[in-house]
């Protein structure tokens, strides 16, 4: 969960909204997506269920956004404005392979 004063929170929200708004203004937004909660369950073979996301990796998936782009480069350009960088996060750009 993000922490900070109400002003910081509001400023953070604005940055996210501006970023999503910018992608939408380029008509490249498919779905703004969602944040993912921190808690979760992990299922393994043979009905093994444990709490929490994978603990082995340092980075957990915090959220997703779907965009449309003609190339990786274009998608990377869109990702560059993501406010997650200002709090030390990273963005991974992945294509969706149609099933």
């Amino acid at each position, binding site marked *: 969960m993000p922490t900070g004063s109400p002003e910081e929170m509001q400023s953070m929200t*604005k940055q996210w*909204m*501006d970023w*999503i*708004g*910018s992608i*939408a*203004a*380029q*008509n490249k*937004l498919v779905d*703004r997506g969602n944040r993912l909660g921190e808690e979760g369950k992990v299922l393994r073979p043979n009905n093994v269920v444990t709490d929490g996301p994978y603990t082995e990796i340092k980075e957990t998936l915090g959220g997703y956004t779907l965009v449309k782009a003609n190339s990786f480069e274009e998608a990377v350009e869109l990702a560059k404005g993501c406010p997650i960088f200002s709090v030390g996060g990273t963005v991974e750009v992945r294509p969706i392979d149609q099933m």
Partner: protein
Amino acid sequence: MEHQEMIPHLFRTEYSKIVSVLGKLVGFEHIEIAEDIAGDTFLLATETWSIKGLPENPAAWLYTVAKNRAKDHLKRNNIFFEKVKPGIQRSNSELHEIEIDLSNKNIIDSQLQMMFAICHPLIPAEAQIGLSLRILCGFGIEEIADAFLSNKETINKRLFRAKEKLRKEKVRIEFPGISEIDARLETVLTTLYLLFNEGYYSLSQNTTLRKDLCMEAMRLNYLLADDPHTNKPPVNALLSLMCFHASRFDARLNQNGEIILYDDQDTALWDENLITQGEFYLNRAATGDKLSKYHLEAAIAYWHTKKDDTAEKWESILQLYNQLLQVEYSPIAALNRTFALAKARGKQTAIIEAEKLKLTTNHLYYALLGYLYTDIDNQQALTHLQAALKLSKSTPDKETILKSINKIQEYR
């Protein structure tokens, strides 16, 4: 109102009422009959009134004539038995029982049901607007042609095809069922929205006609907002949007029908009454769990009724555009968002964003870039404005762009 002005106005409103009620009675199969009867009624009224003067209650006079003509026609052509009350044995006494209900309630119900029939997803939006103007607003074919910058023949063809389609698909003049109403209402609202825009942004030089189009779109929207079936949040939101826009109608055009830009408008000409109404309907729209694009556009229009440039105003407008673009992309919303961005975050930030839009066939895109570069890099500004001028098609647009070019050149 002067006699000369009153009659066309009266004909227009009463035409739509009579056609809706009769149309509801005979269905789309025979809609022409309803139109003919209304037309004949007005012809007779024009002849009679020019000799005898206006009757005391012109609307009641029209209804009586229309009723009698309708009865005659239905009787003569067996339509009553085939369509209205099939299976009833024909006898003279029963012919007198044909009820043509021109009460206020039935008029409004019929108009609403007609609205759903006309604004039907089966026919193209353009045809929906045309039919609405003809049947729901009582506009003449010539007026419709004028509004669309088209000719009578094209409009006639368009309306004919649309009516054929509705007939063929057996579209009924009725309220949609409860489960469908939201989806069907969406089509109706889109048509009203386009109808309003047709008036507001039309290239037609006929200012009176343009204002009438807006007023008609609002009147139909009021009918929806007043009816318990259709008094839904997006209906109120759209009405609010129209009120806010219409409040600037007199301020945004000069005597020659040319556009006066928002920044240059005389706020004394803004209609306070309509602004208050807009606020009323915006409040009424604030229920339910769905934020429609009309809510967002109405909220943007609300902020535009505040002339002072405050940080709060432009930040709010920017965020509303950010949301609007997620609901529905349009080039104009993208451009307006970038303008708001300039106001809220400065021109430098906005230039970077504007250049990502790449709307290179849109003159407004270059006009925006011209505006953003003005005072930052005037040479760039001029290059963009020249590109805008080259792409623009209408005279008012060209004039506005030329003014910006001249302004920059004066300072050099």
